C-alpha cells in the first residue's frame, strides 16, 4: 500500500533501465519499496539494475522481457506482473526513444517505429495497467512525458509529437480513473543529462535524473497531477506555449 506520503511498497517499471527510473527506485527503496518488477528489452542491462537495487535494500527484484512494439503481449505481461506483486502501488512508464530528428525525417519507417514505441505502446500498457488498478482500488501510475509534448519544435517534432500523444493519453486516463482510487501523474522533464541525450547540446534548464526523481517523489507527496522537472519549467512553458509562432520559431532556431 502507498502510505500517507505516497511512498509505495511494490513498484512495476516499464523501461527498467531508464536512468530516471533508476534514480526514482533508489529513492523509493530508501523509504518503503521492498518488491520491484523491472520490465525492459535488454535482459543483461535489466539484471544489472536489479543487482544494484538489491544492494540498496530492495528485498525482491524480478526482471521480465518487455518489447514495446509487441502490443499483443502487453495485457498478459501486465497481468503476470500484477499477479506476482499482489498489489502494485506504483507503476512507472519510463520507456521511450528520442531518435535523431534529421534521420527520422529521412526515414518514415523509423519515425513511425518511434511513434509506436513512445505513443502506441504507452497507450497499450497504460490501459492494461489501468484495468488492474481499478480492480485493486488504489495505485499511482507515473508516466514520463516531456516538455517536448507541450509545443512542437522544428528541431524534434517527431519525438515531441509522440510525447504529445502520450501526454494527452495519460492526462485523459487520469481523468478516467478519478474515483477509482488510482491516480495518474504525468511527469514533464526538460533536457535531462542521460545516455539518451549524451553528445547533444544541453537546453536551458537542463537537469539530471536525480533531480527529476526528487520532483517525482515530491509529486507523490503532494498529490500533484502534473510534475515539471525542474519545476520552473511549468512557468517557462506557460509563456512559450502562448508565444506567437514567428517568435517561437525564432527562439527555436537559437
Amino acid at each position, binding site marked *: 500500500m502507498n502510505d*500517507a506520503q505516497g511512498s509505495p511498497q511494490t513498484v512495476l517499471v516499464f523501461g527498467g533501465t531508464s536512468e530516471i527510473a533508476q534514480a526514482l527506485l533508489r529513492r523509493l527503496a530508501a523509504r518503503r519499496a521492498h518488491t520491484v518488477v523491472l520490465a525492459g528489452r535488454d535482459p543483461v542491462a535489466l539484471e544489472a539494475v536489479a543487482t544494484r537495487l538489491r544492494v540498496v535494500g530492495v528485498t525482491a527484484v524480478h526482471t521480465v522481457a518487455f518489447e514495446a512494439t509487441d502490443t499483443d503481449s502487453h495485457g498478459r505481461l501486465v497481468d503476470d506482473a500484477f499477479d506476482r506483486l499482489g498489489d502494485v502501488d506504483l507503476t512507472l512508464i519510463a520507456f521511450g526513444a528520442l531518435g535523431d530528428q534529421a534521420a527520422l525525417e529521412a526515414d518514415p519507417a523509423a519515425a513511425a517505429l518511434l511513434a509506436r514505441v513512445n505513443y502506441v505502446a504507452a497507450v497499450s500498457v497504460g490501459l492494461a495497467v489501468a484495468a488492474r488498478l481499478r*480492480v485493486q*482500488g488504489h495505485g499511482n501510475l507515473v508516466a514520463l512525458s516531456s516538455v517536448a509534448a507541450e509545443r512542437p519544435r522544428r528541431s524534434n517534432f517527431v519525438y515531441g509529437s509522440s510525447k504529445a500523444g502520450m501526454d494527452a493519453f495519460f492526462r485523459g486516463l487520469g481523468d478516467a480513473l478519478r474515483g477509482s482510487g488510482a491516480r495518474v501523474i504525468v511527469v514533464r522533464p526538460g533536457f535531462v543529462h542521460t545516455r539518451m541525450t549524451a553528445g547533444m547540446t544541453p537546453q536551458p534548464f537542463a537537469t539530471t535524473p536525480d533531480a527529476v526523481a526528487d520532483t517525482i517523489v515530491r509529486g507523490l507527496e503532494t498529490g500533484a497531477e502534473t510534475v515539471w522537472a525542474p519545476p520552473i519549467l511549468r512557468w517557462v512553458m506557460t509563456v512559450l506555449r502562448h508565444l506567437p509562432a514567428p517568435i517561437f520559431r525564432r527562439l527555436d532556431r537559437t
Partner: protein
Amino acid sequence: MRELLTGWGRTAPTAADVIRPATAEEVVAALADGEPRGAIARGLGRAYGDAAQNAGGHVLSTLALGGVEWADEQAGLVRVSGGTSLDSIQRFLVPQGWALPVLPGTRHVTVGGAVAADVHGKNHRVDGSFARHLAQLTLALPDGVHRASPAEDPDLFWATVGGLGLTGVVLDAVLAARPIQTAFVRVATRRAVDLDAVLAGLEEAAGRHRYAVAWIDGMARGRGVVAGGDDALTADLPAAARRAPLARVEGRHLAVPSWLPGAPMPPVAVAALNELRWRRAPSAETTTVEPLERFLFPLDAVDGWNRLYGRSGFVQYQFAVPAHAADLIGTALDRLARAGCAPLLAVLKRFGAADAAPLSFPIPGWTLALDLPAALPGLAVALDGLDELVAAAGGRVYLAKDARLRPDLVEAMYPALDAWRAVKARVDPAGVLTSDLGRRLGLVG
C-alpha cells in the same frame, strides 16, 4: 457502490465497495460472500489513517447498526450496537446521571471504532482505556457470531480490543458506565513557560486530577498550557446551572467552509493562533467550571476541522514512551522543528497501566500527539527517524492513527504481535477481515 475513502487525515484515498448491513445476519453474510479482497468495518471515519479502508474490497459501514439500552440499570451496564456513536450513548446516559468512563478527543466515533482502537481519554491514569469498562463483545466473523469477554474466549476479546477491526466486526458491546452528579468539570488551568515546566506541571496535574492534559506550542520550543480536571459536584456549579446539572450545554458550533484553499494554513497563521492561545491561559493556576463535553472534545466545536490542513491532508503522529524516556518528547519536537516540520497541534498526556490487549496502544508513561501537514517537505524522513527512536526507547506509535509507520518496526513496538496473529489465524483463517492499514503494516497476510 464503489466509493473513494480516506481516513480523517484525508491522505492516501482508495476505493472500495461500501455495503451498509442493517442486521447481524447481513454482516455475517457480507463477510462470507467470498470477496477476494476481503472486508473491513467502518464507522464514522475518524481514524486518521487507513485503518477503515479496504482498497478494491468491501467496506462495511456499521452506521445502520445503532441503538442503546440498559443491560442492567442498577449496575450501570449499557448494551450498545457497534455502529452507535459515543455521542448517542452520552445523550442517553448523561440525563440519567451516568457517563462513559473513557471518552477520546471526539464523541463522533462509534463503539466499534472505540473498541478497534482501544481508545483512551485524558483520564487514562485513573480510568485506563476503553477496554477496562468493556464487559462483553458480540462479534461477526465469516463463520458466524462469536461472544467474547474477559471470561469467555479472553484471547479473542483481547485481540479485538485495539485489534483494528481485523478480528471481527463489533455487532454489540456491553459497557460499564459510571455515575455522575453533573455534566460539568472543574478545570484548573495554567501556563507553562517551557517544555520542562509542561512536563512537571502535567505530572503534578495527573497525580491530583482525574483528567490531565497539556497543549504544547510546537512552534515555540515547547511552552504550553496544562489543564487538570475533576467531576464537578452540584455545589460547584453556578446557581443557574444547579437547577439542571445534567443538562447538555450546546456550545457555539462552527464549520470549516468548503471553499477553503487547497493549501494548509500558513505557519504564520498557526503561530498567531498559538500565541493567542498561550496568552489567553492564566499564568497562575485558575479554576473554572466547564461543560464536560467542551473540556473533553474541544475539536468537536469545529465541523470538518480536518479540512484546515488543505488538499494533501495531514498525519497525526502519536507515540507513547515509558516514563523514563520522557526526554524523547523534547527530542521529537526539536527534530521536527529543525526539519522545518513544526506540528500545528501538539497534545501531551500521561498514561497509567496498560491492559492485556496485544495491540492496545497505551503503556505507562507519556504520550505525545502531533498534527502535521502530510506534504511538508522532509516530513517523511523526519518521522521515519522518530519511529526508530520511539521503538528503541520501548515505545510505540498509535496504529489506529497511523498512516505511514515503518512496517519493519511494528514488531518491536508491539512485542505481543505474534500472540495477536495466532488469534487472528484461529478466528479468521481465510483472512477475510483486512484493511489498507493491515496490508501496509503487514499485520495480515
